[in-house]
């Protein structure tokens, strides 16, 4: 359906009205343009900031990784030292145990011999032969 044709006398009035409304539309579009430009600039700024921040964090992560790798090397070295030290310690401990066991056996033997000696000295024969040992200058 065709729209109603305006009265020819009304056309200039409509043109004047539309002329002003077109200016209003231009102002609205200018507002929209300015708002969009502002938003775009803000988004650009955000992206720039986000990228810069991410790059900074990547650098920090790389630095942290380097520190971690250095610490790992030190850790591995210390672990090696620890392993070697532990082995030496174990050997020393074994030797110590061996020595301790030997000493204990000797101690036992000493005790046995002392007991034997006490028994000998307490024996009747020892007492009876004391005079004989005295003749030699050693009565005990």
């Amino acid at each position: 359906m065709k729209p109603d044709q305006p009265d020819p006398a009304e056309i200039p009035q409509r043109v004047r009205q539309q002329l002003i409304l077109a200016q209003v539309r231009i102002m609205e579009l200018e507002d929209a343009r300015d708002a969009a430009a502002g938003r775009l600039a803000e988004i650009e700024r955000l992206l720039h900031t986000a990228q810069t921040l991410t790059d900074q964090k990547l650098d920090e992560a790389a630095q942290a990784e380097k520190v971690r790798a250095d610490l790992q090397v030190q850790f591995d070295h210390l672990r090696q030292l620890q392993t070697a030290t532990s082995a030496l310690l174990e050997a020393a401990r074994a030797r110590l145990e061996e020595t301790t066991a030997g000493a204990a056996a000797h101690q036992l033997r000493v005790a046995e011999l002392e007991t034997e000696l006490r028994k000998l000295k307490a024996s009747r024969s020892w007492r009876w032969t004391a005079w004989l040992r005295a003749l030699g200058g050693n009565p005990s």
Partner: protein
Amino acid sequence: MSPAAALVLHFEIETPRPLRLAAREVVIKGWCLADDLPAPPPVRLVTPAGILPLTGRQSRADVPQLFPRHPAAAHCGFTLAGRLPPGVHLASFEAQRPDGTWQLFKQLTLAIERAPFVAVLDEPVSQGTLRDRVKVGGWALDVDEPVAELTLHYGHRELACDPELLRNDVPGQFPDVPHAGRAGFRSQDFLVAGHGPMRVRARLASGRVAIAATNVVFSVATDENHAAGLDLTVPRISLDAASAARPPIPAAPTRAARPLNVLFILHGSFAANSALHVAALANELSAAGHTCAVAVPHDPATLAQHDRPAFRGLTFAEAERGEGFADGRGPDVIHAWTTRENVRVLTEKLRLRHRARVLVHLEDNERQLLALTLARDPAELDRLSDAELDRLVPPDLSHPHRSRAFLAAADGVTVITERLREFVPAGKPVLTLWPAADARHFYPRPLPEKFRRVLERTPGETVLFYHGNVHAANAAEVRELYAAVVELNRSGQPVTLIRTGLDRVELPADLAAAAAPHVLNLGQIPHHHHLPALMALADILVQPGEPDAFNDYRFPSKLPEFFALGRPVVLPRTNLGTVVRHGTDAYVLDRADAAGIAAAVRALRADPALAARLAHGALAFAEKNFSWRRSAEALASFYLAVTPS
């Protein structure tokens, strides 16, 4: 196999950072060398979306200064190039060890922008000015998706084109774009009269719209529909010629020593005149360090009509839920904007919950407004019972009885005119708060002479301007304004009235018909800040009306805007008309009815010196008396006086 020994690398990525590349061809430059290697190691860039290989080596004069004994320093520059899809990628730069393995040495983000839509017009010309009415053609390509529809734009013209035509030459330039071979287009018709750079506008397969400029300007003055006398090359005449006159941005206000949370409660949406006042005050209060929220009963989206609001807009429901203030506290002050029922009900609910101080703002003779709207006598309405009034009074008007109790319980009252103090209970703290005009937009604007010449029916025509809705309360006075315009034209004084706003009450048919040739009705202008450029078209600004029980108590919002614009203002001897000086600040009429307005317009047109004096006087009056900054400072002091510290 034992891992290869790590290289000790020295390097720099020299493409500016953060890496953001617009071109399809991504190119990154830098330098890299390794201790103990006589030649620079090969480098590459690895992303999840693809790898950029080493494509070039450059000599470096600067690196040998840093590493004077290194044999590779003089030629360690590199270029990495290739194609990557749009997006943000994690880019890992790697150097190759002698055993062929790669060693990461730097990670960065890499943002790749979408390749731009490209359009080339090459038939019959590829650049310069085309002055022949011919069919034109070319090619247009978006690398991501094919073109579905295509139009050619120049000047005020838009021409449909056939897209997806065969082009054998384009795939050579875009070998990896499968639809490049069908990038051709051609206009369906011969070009018609028009003037301007030619642009290609395409709707792509996904619905996305892309626009690209070409190197061709089209310029043909006439065709069968355009007479030779119509010059299509003339520059656009701007309506807003006032940018040079824009005042400087004022300094920030003094910061409040005791910032408050202030909740304004409006009876209508942000599109109402009251919202202009509240928004201006809230913006100023916010600039001073207070936190403001404004609650509206409906259409919260109308906040978008305000220019850069510095407050939070809320619905009544959101305000009821306790939203509004970032610090989680409720309002210290609730400023109920009028005693209208919807405002009163919400205010009383929130007052109990938040133990806030309540101020009530009066801007109208509410009793008279209700009577006018209901077409009843005010005294008769007063005599009705509460129950009968509850049934009659709509939410956006004031209940004669309940509003009195509401005012009596308020901690303070603000009034827009001195006369409204008559409604304030005795002993109640009260502040008169004059409105102002938004200084960012309402300032002295010169007449846009060129635009006026285009607009005028007759040289020397007078233009009047009136903005605002027509409703029951002001319909009679707007009728007088229309009648004045008819009378002036009938008497040989050509006058055009530019109107904005909605007509909620219709004019009498005979008056509407008589006024129609002389009235440019622009309807609702959604953004209030667009009005000043339209108002600048006027020679005289007229506020119709006369002293009566409605006008004596109000302060028409448009008056500060009239005065700020620097035009002679005609107004009746009521409200502001009782304050301004006739012949100095404005043209004051005992009654601004049709005869009075017509006489004032004739007098001002007959005496340019008087018109100039009143234009100057209006500005001087505005500068002295209208300032949202000063009003907000007074209001903040009033708030502090009624709130405990």
